[in-house]
């Protein structure tokens, strides 16, 4: 009898727990309400991995940037083609020496809570971005601004930053050197204004949906970590009348195969990427909806220049660079529209003619013969082959590229390549320490559309010069270019620097990336662009 009572009590408790657990969650009520009202235009975006933060100062990956671009707006913004257009600043004047930018802000710019958005907000935000106490990953966006470097390094207080509000709608920005791409830099999500009263009230919790006051076309309404971020039309936004989207949902689609199936099941209006192994199937079956566009990214193999065998051995580095058949690589191995890279700065970069290795135009056989000659001159032969390690992080694509390149080096030069597969952060640490690393795979994504974002990577003093390249001539050319106000002369200097660097071959560019999306035909206003930015406010649904 006692047993039966215990059983009955447990069963009742279990039933109660189950009933609580399976009660509808909040989201279902919201959906039910939405169904009842007039139809609203909901844009459903596949957005890749989980955004790590919605606070522009903490965001650091593309999936977070995509959302921040909808929620916030900087001084400048992009048009659907990825070109720079006015954002919160409706116009600007540049001083004759190119060092002082005076931005005039829109009178009707407001925060999503109705507060007016003024130049003081930008001053506050830029100082906070530079302040090392903030710990912003993209503090370096400000580096062209006077004193930014010293503030980031902690040797000057943030108040010394070269930005100043000379009126409620006038912002003056002083630069260290003429920086023609400063307007591009201002489009970067890290350069968005943040709402001072909210940050002072909530601190780190500013980025939570209930606290986030923003100034873009949308305002965040929900963030279900692991599933989606939802944002609704910001009626306070100055350009609200031109926005055709009422609500946008950024789905977490970290698994690209699952993303494709959700797209096929009509649950997404466009995807953030595509599953590469299914590329051919997609091309045949969804070819009209597939959008492939060049993207400011170079995939390369870096060589550790601080240790043997690559330190001081330019011939060996050139031989390896020449013995890779990049056409074969992009057609057969990657095979999704990538462009073979014979230079470092990707095509499509503003005010720039892409440069190539001097041997890029040689016929394949001549190129191989030349590579073999350099390899021999560097002191290696089939009998005494180069034995070297290539580190890559765990991913099918990286493995396939590494195997193919290793095969080419073996066939043409007799190089014995060992592939070392490492977890991403372990690889990064090894690359930085420059101790065990010999060759590593990486890619460099341009932050803004200017060659300098690529040139700078190989400057001796740039913190992230992963290969350890140090060439005073190269540095001097970059510094000259940085001080140059004439765009044509600046361009010539940067191009010369790239040629000089390519001759040294501190790294081996393999191919230029492309962005890949599937876009439903009912999505209007979609434009492929080199920045791969797609603002929801530019799109509409038919």
């Amino acid at each position, binding site marked *: 009898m006692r047993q039966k009572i*215990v*059983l009955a009590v447990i069963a009742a408790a279990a039933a109660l727990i189950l009933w609580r*657990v*399976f009660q509808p*969650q909040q*989201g*279902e009520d919201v*959906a039910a309400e*939405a*169904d009842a009202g007039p139809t609203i235009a909901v844009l*459903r975006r596949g957005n890749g991995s*989980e955004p*790590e*933060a*919605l*606070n522009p100062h*903490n965001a*650091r990956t593309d999936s977070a940037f995509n959302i921040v671009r909808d929620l916030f707006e900087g001084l400048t913004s992009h048009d659907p083609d990825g070109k720079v257009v006015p954002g919160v600043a409706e116009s600007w004047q540049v001083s004759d020496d190119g060092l002082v930018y005076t931005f005039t802000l829109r009178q009707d710019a407001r925060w999503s809570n109705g507060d007016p958005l003024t130049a003081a907000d930008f001053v506050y935000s830029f100082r906070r971005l530079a302040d*090392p*106490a903030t*710990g*912003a*990953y*993209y*503090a*370096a966006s400000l580096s062209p601004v006077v004193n930014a470097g010293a503030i*980031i*390094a*902690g040797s000057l207080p943030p108040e010394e930053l070269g930005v100043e509000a000379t009126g409620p709608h006038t912002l003056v920005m002083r630069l260290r050197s003429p920086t023609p791409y400063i307007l591009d830099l201002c489009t970067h999500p890290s350069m968005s204004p943040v709402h001072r009263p909210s940050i002072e009230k909530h601190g*780190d919790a*500013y*980025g*939570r949906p209930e606290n986030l006051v923003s100034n873009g076309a949308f305002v965040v309404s929900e963030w*279900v*970590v*692991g*599933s*989606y971020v*939802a944002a609704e039309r910001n009626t306070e936004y100055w350009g609200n009348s031109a926005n055709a989207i009422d609500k946008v949902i950024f*789905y977490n*689609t*970290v*698994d690209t*195969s*699952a993303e494709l*199936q*959700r797209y*096929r*099941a009509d*649950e997404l209006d466009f995807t953030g990427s595509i599953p590469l192994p299914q590329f051919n199937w997609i091309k045949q079956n969804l070819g009209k909806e597939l959008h492939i566009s060049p993207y400011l990214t170079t995939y390369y193999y870096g060589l550790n220049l601080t240790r043997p065998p690559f330190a001081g051995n330019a011939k060996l580095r050139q031989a390896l660079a020449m013995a890779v058949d990049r056409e074969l690589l992009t057609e057969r191995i990657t095979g999704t529209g990538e462009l073979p890279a014979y230079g470092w700065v990707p095509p499509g970069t503003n005010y720039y003619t892409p440069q190539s290795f001097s041997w890029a135009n040689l016929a394949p056989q001549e190129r191989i013969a030349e590579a073999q000659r350099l390899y021999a001159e560097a002191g290696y032969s089939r009998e005494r082959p180069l034995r070297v390690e290539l580190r890559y992080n765990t991913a099918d694509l990286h493995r396939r590229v590494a195997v193919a390149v290793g095969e080419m080096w073996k066939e043409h030069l007799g190089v014995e390549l060992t592939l070392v597969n490492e*977890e*991403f*952060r*372990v690889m*990064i*640490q*090894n690359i930085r320490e420059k101790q065990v690393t010999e060759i590593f795979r*990486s*890619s460099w994504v341009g932050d803004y559309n200017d060659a300098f974002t690529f040139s700078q990577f190989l400057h001796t003093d740039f*913190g992230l010069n992963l290969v350890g390249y140090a060439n005073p001539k190269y540095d001097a050319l970059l510094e000259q270019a940085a001080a140059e106000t004439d765009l044509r002369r600046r361009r010539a200097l940067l191009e010369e620097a790239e040629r000089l660097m390519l001759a040294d071959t501190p790294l081996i560019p393999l191919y230029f990336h492309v962005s890949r999306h599937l876009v439903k035909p009912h999505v209007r206003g979609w434009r492929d662009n080199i920045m791969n930015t797609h603002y929801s406010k530019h799109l509409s649904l038919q």
Partner: protein
Amino acid sequence: MAVPTLLVLVVLAFVLMRLAPGSPFSSERNLPPSVEENLNARYGLDDSLGEQLLRYLGNLARGDFGPSLYYSDHDVADLIREGFPTSLRLGLAAMILALGAGVTAGIAAARRPGGMLDHLLMGVAIAGISVPNFVVAPLLILVFAVWLGWLPASGAGPDASLTAAGMVLPVVALALPQFAYVARLTRASMLEVLDSSYILAARAKGLPERTILLRHGLRPALLPVVSYLGPATAAVITGSVVIEEIFGLPGLGRYFVQAALNRDYFLVLGVVVFYGLLVVIANLLVDLCYGLLDPRVQRQ
């Protein structure tokens, strides 16, 4: 026993996590050294490991799980609080499905070992154990969401909510391997029980087969299933990274993998402690159930 076990678990997880090379703040991007120092100082990562461990244990004792290093807008406790309900819903539904279907299948198979039904059910069970989730889940989506269009492809559904329909496919995918284990365990222990002397006595008394199976056979046969069920339930209700990523569900499972990859120290520790706690509770419940199922345990 529970507290020392959890303590060992935390210390072990802490040490292992910190032995892994790489920093929570490293990326392919440039983080100025001054900023990295500031971040380390802010999260107390610049103190000695011993101090950090003691501080963490102290905070933990007060119920403070610390901040997430990667999801900087969130606390670890927030992430667990927000993620757990989804994992719990899915996990419980999957376990109920697996238990009901598995026990039924196990009994049915044990009735005539070597028979057609036995082969069929155990074949399904073998497939359930050996075909991984990341194959089953996309197949289910392809058939039921893309081809037939009966169910949504993602748990989150087109209207951005966790709907009952959206839960069907993830629950089935999650339940399949559990179903398989439960069915095999039930079958094996049922066969053993049916061989015992008291079942022989029951048969000799001329009791109907149904009564023998369900009344005299099932209770003792369930013991191994119940002891499996405890830890399995704790594992299933803390989520599955594969199921969550494929169906875009906001559960806890992803953190076990992603947090480790991101070197999100406090999040890793948080989910490990949480999971450890659930395992301890589940084992306690299993012990209680034993008493109900087996009078001998009660007397001890």
